């Protein structure tokens, strides 16, 4: 069985993670800030290989075993393996679309979720949509590989609204960034 190799997710994904919004100048500024802080871990890179548990895509978490691919307005939709908040799909937006009047954050936390249709792992950027009051629909709190603030890009509690006009949290999207293997 192929083990999930977090280290194989390279720096090349930085720009993808940073998103493709119209706020490119903001994105590049943030990108520089992140790159300029070398000890800030950009991606889920394990530094404790010895203690690393079996986390191959095949040895699925409880979420992954039960995930579905049909309905992105339910918490068990496969991409939502580490989402926390209101699903934008239930708020007038979509899986990668902010509801009207909200603005996607160019930076985000990430998850590595397994698509049950093909068994492959994908990197998901959970971009918060910002600038409107909380959409209280479809609250989910999944936590596969979700960690603490000292690894912020893997923490789903932070208000990920940077580079947006307002930092008010509205809802969260789950944007497919690429394959994680």
């Amino acid at each position, binding site marked *: 069985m192929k083990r999930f190799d977090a280290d194989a997710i390279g720096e090349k994904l930085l720009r993808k993670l940073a998103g493709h*919004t119209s706020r490119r100048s903001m994105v590049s500024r943030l990108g520089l800030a992140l790159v300029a802080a070398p000890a800030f871990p950009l991606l889920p890179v394990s530094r404790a290989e010895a203690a690393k548990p079996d986390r191959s895509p095949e040895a699925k978490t409880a979420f992954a075993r039960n995930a579905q691919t*049909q309905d992105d307005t*339910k918490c068990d939709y496969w991409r939502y393996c580490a989402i926390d908040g209101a699903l934008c799909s239930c708020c*007038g937006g979509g899986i*990668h679309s902010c509801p009207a009047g909200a603005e*996607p954050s160019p930076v985000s936390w990430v998850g590595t979720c397994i698509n*049950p249709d093909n068994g492959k792992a994908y990197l998901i950027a959970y971009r918060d949509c910002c600038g*409107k009051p*909380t959409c209280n629909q479809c609250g989910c709190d999944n936590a596969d590989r979700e960690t603490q603030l000292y690894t912020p890009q893997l923490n789903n509690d932070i208000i990920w609204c940077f580079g947006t006009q307002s930092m008010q949290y509205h809802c969260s999207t789950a*944007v497919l960034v690429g394959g994680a293997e």
Partner: protein
Amino acid sequence: MKPHSAYVYGMCATIAACAVSAGSAALAKDPHGLEPEESDVVTISPPKPDWFFVRGGWNVDGTGIYDGKTGKMLGMVASSQLSDMAIDPAGKYYYVSETIWSKGNRGTRQDMVSVYDSSSLKLVSEIAIPNRILVNEREHNFILADDGKLGFVYNFSPASAVNVVDLAKRKFVKTVELPGCAALIPNPGVGFSALCSDGSMATVAAPAGKAQITHSASFFPANDDPIFENFAYDKAKNLAIFVSYTGLVYTAKMGASPVISAPFSLQEAAGYAPASTKPLSVDWYPGSRQPMAYNATTGEVFVLMHMGEYWSHKAFGDEIWVLDVANRKVARRFPLKDPAAHIGVSQGAEAMIFINDEKGKGTILDARTGEEKHSIDAAGSGIIVAAAGS
């Protein structure tokens, strides 16, 4: 069929909400691809007759926009605590009258009408105004002139007045003092009217100009059997419809000198004796935080009713009574599963009722049959406004 389908079907046994998605579970294809995606932002259409606008509630900002047919949330108008919303009759803007301090609960007070584009739902402008009233749960503290060019914002300092706002030019015009009156009533071609504590109706003609105030004769006992501020207005008939605490129904043909009808009893219209203001007398009464909604197509008023004694006018509704105003008959009564705090009725061809409770659970009923169509968790626990008819 992929293995997960079994899971989806298996889930249906335990999760009620699954019934909605079971139909699509047969599809084996993910609605989305597996190629990298870009983030974007949607726009929405101007308000439609099937739409409801539901305030979050006391502690919850925002006004959710729901499609009454599907029960789905379409978007949200940003609205702060104690704000009031009005909808541009042309459908181009949502106006939010709000009060914001520069440091949350302290600092500089900033009263304004915030203008949102109805398609992008983005903030377009802020129009500074003075001293709007701070109160939760009202529809008639911010109304618009028929042509949408003027807005009237109730002002309370604590003396009563009305702020006149030029929405076309996006500027504050003036404050009209209106002692002892509140609850603003549209009065096309004239200005606006209001109910007063002496039991009269005040009419303010040319509010942006001379602002001449006239009063009708006193027609209701304001202290003893007050009229709910949550009244209805029929634009086509230019008619305001009021219900009092005891269930007396008044209508007012609006104009420079509004013509107010003698009242009739809502309870009599349902076959009961009229309700009493006397203690130790149990009757059905109208009540709750937003007791009444109106469908202009059918001319029906939908009233939240409860059993109790007089001065129980804040009790939530256990039934909806549907009053045919012209024929003075309660046409239908819908018992409710849970007591309702607010009620709205859509203006589309197949009218829907939206009710909610204090916990924010929203329920959509068929306005003709009372049949439950949708139940929405956390829909909002504040007042419900229906979009205008087409």
